[in-house]
C-alpha cells in the first residue's frame, strides 16, 4: 500500500489546501447564483412585457450566454476586459461576474416560461379586481410561477457548481486547480496520487450536487402532487 499514493492527500497541508480550493469554488458558485437569481427574476418578468425591442434585447442576452461556451466567456472577460476597457478585476471576481451573468440569462428563460404558464384567466381575474401591474406580479403570478421555477432553478445550480471546474483556466485557485498543483508537485514520488486527488474532488462535487439533485427531484414531485 506504500505506493498507492493515498499519502498525497494527507501529506503536509495538502488536504486543508484542497478544502480551501473547495471553499473558493463554493463561494464563487454561491455568490454568482444569488446575484444571478435576483437579476434573472427581474429580467424574466420584463420578458413577459409586450414591449418588442425590450424582449428582443433580453432574448439576445439569453442566446449569447447560452450559445457561447462558458470557457470562451471566461477568456473573453478575463483577457478582453482589461485590455480593451482597462477594467482590471481579480480572477475570482471575473469568474463570479461571468457566472452571475450566465445564471441570470438562464433564469430569465425559466422565469418567463413559468410566468407564461400561469393561466391567462388568473391574470384577468387579478386585473378585474383592480390590481396594478406589479401587484398582479407580486400577489398572483409570481407566487404561482415560483413552484414551477424551482426544479429547473435547482438543476441550474448543479450545472453552475459543475462548471466551476473550468475556472482553473483563468487561474482561479479553485479545488481543481489546487488538486492539479498537488498532483504535479508529487508526480515523481507518488505517480498514483492523481487517482486519489481526483477521487476526493469527485467526492467533494458529489457531496454538493447530489443533495441539490435530490432536492430538485423532491420539489418536482411535490409540485406534481399539489396539482392533483
Amino acid at each position, binding site marked *: 500500500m506504500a505506493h498507492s499514493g493515498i499519502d498525497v492527500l494527507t501529506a503536509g497541508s495538502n488536504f486543508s489546501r484542497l478544502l480551501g480550493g473547495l471553499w473558493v469554488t463554493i463561494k464563487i458558485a454561491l455568490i454568482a447564483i444569488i446575484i444571478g437569481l435576483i437579476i434573472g427574476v427581474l429580467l424574466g418578468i420584463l420578458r413577459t412585457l409586450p414591449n418588442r425591442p425590450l424582449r428582443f434585447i433580453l432574448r439576445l442576452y439569453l442566446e449569447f450566454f447560452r450559445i457561447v461556451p462558458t470557457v470562451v466567456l471566461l477568456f473573453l472577460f478575463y483577457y478582453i476586459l482589461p485590455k480593451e476597457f482597462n477594467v482590471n478585476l481579480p480572477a475570482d471576481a471575473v469568474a463570479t461576474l461571468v457566472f452571475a451573468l450566465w445564471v441570470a440569462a438562464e433564469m430569465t428563460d425559466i422565469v418567463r416560461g413559468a410566468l407564461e404558464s400561469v393561466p391567462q*384567466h*388568473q391574470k*384577468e*381575474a*387579478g*386585473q*378585474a*379586481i*383592480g*390590481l*396594478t*401591474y406589479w*401587484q398582479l406580479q407580486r*400577489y*398572483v403570478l409570481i*407566487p*404561482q410561477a415560483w413552484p414551477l421555477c424551482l426544479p429547473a432553478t435547482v438543476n441550474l445550480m448543479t450545472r453552475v457548481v459543475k462548471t466551476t471546474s473550468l475556472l482553473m483556466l483563468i487561474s482561479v485557485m479553485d479545488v481543481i486547480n489546487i488538486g492539479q498543483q498537488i498532483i504535479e508537485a508529487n508526480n515523481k514520488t507518488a505517480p498514483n496520487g492523481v487517482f486519489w486527488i481526483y477521487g476526493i474532488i469527485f467526492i467533494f462535487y458529489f457531496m454538493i450536487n447530489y443533495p441539490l439533485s435530490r432536492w430538485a427531484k423532491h420539489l418536482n414531485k411535490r409540485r406534481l402532487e399539489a396539482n392533483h
Partner: protein
Amino acid sequence: MSTPLLHVNHLEKYYQKTHILHDVNFELNTGEVLTLLGPSGSGKSTLLRCLNGLEAYQQGSITFDGQAVTQKPKQWQQLRQQIGMVFQSYDLFPNRNVLENILLGPLKVQKRTRAAVLPEVQQLLEQVGMADYANAYPRQLSGGQKQRIAIVRALALKPKLMLFDEVTASLDPEMVRDVLNIIRQLADSHAMTMLVVTHEMDFAKQISDQVLFLADGRIREQTPGKQFFEQPQTERAQNFLASMDF
C-alpha cells in the same frame, strides 16, 4: 332625468381584421339589470369584457358614472374597482385561501384597513352561505362554492356595477340555482346595477329590466323587461328563444 350609470355609444370592436361588435349602443341606469342574450359567438362576452378593459375597442365611446372612458391602463385600473366582474371559470387565486382572495382587492388596491373590511367581508360570506369557509383553499371547494366566493371577491370592492359572464355555465345543475339566487338577491335587496350574460332563460326572464339580444355582433333587439320573452320581434330572436327550450 338622471344620467345613466353606463352609456355605450357606437362601440366597434375588431380582432385584427375580424369585425366582432358592430355599432353597439345602450344605456344602463343605476339599479337596473340588463341581460345580454344571444347565440354563442354573438359577441356577448366580448362586449362585457370591453366594459372593464379586458378587451380594447377600436371605435365609439363608453361613459361610466359621468366619466369618459379613455382606455388608458391607469384609468381602467381605477374603474375596475367600481366595475366588478365574475367569470365563467371562477378564477380564484389557488395560492390564497378564501379570505385572502377576497381581501386582496380591498386591502392592496383600495388600501383600506383590515379592521374596516373584515366585518363587511364576514357579512358578505354569510349572505352567500360561505361563512365557515374563510380559511379554505379554492381546491377544497366545489364549483358552486368557488363561484360564490368569486362573487364576494368582486363585491368586496363595493362596485357600482357588476358584470356576470356566464357565471353558471360550468356548474353542475344543482349548483346553478344557488348561484343564481345570490345574483337575484343582489338585484332585489341591494339594487345592484348589473350586466348579465347568461343562458338560463327563466332566470333572465325574472331578473331583467332590459334585454339586449345580440347576434353576429349586432344588437338585434333591445327591449324593456319581459317583453323580449313574450313578444320577440325578430325571427332570429324567435328562433333563439325556441331553441333555448325553457
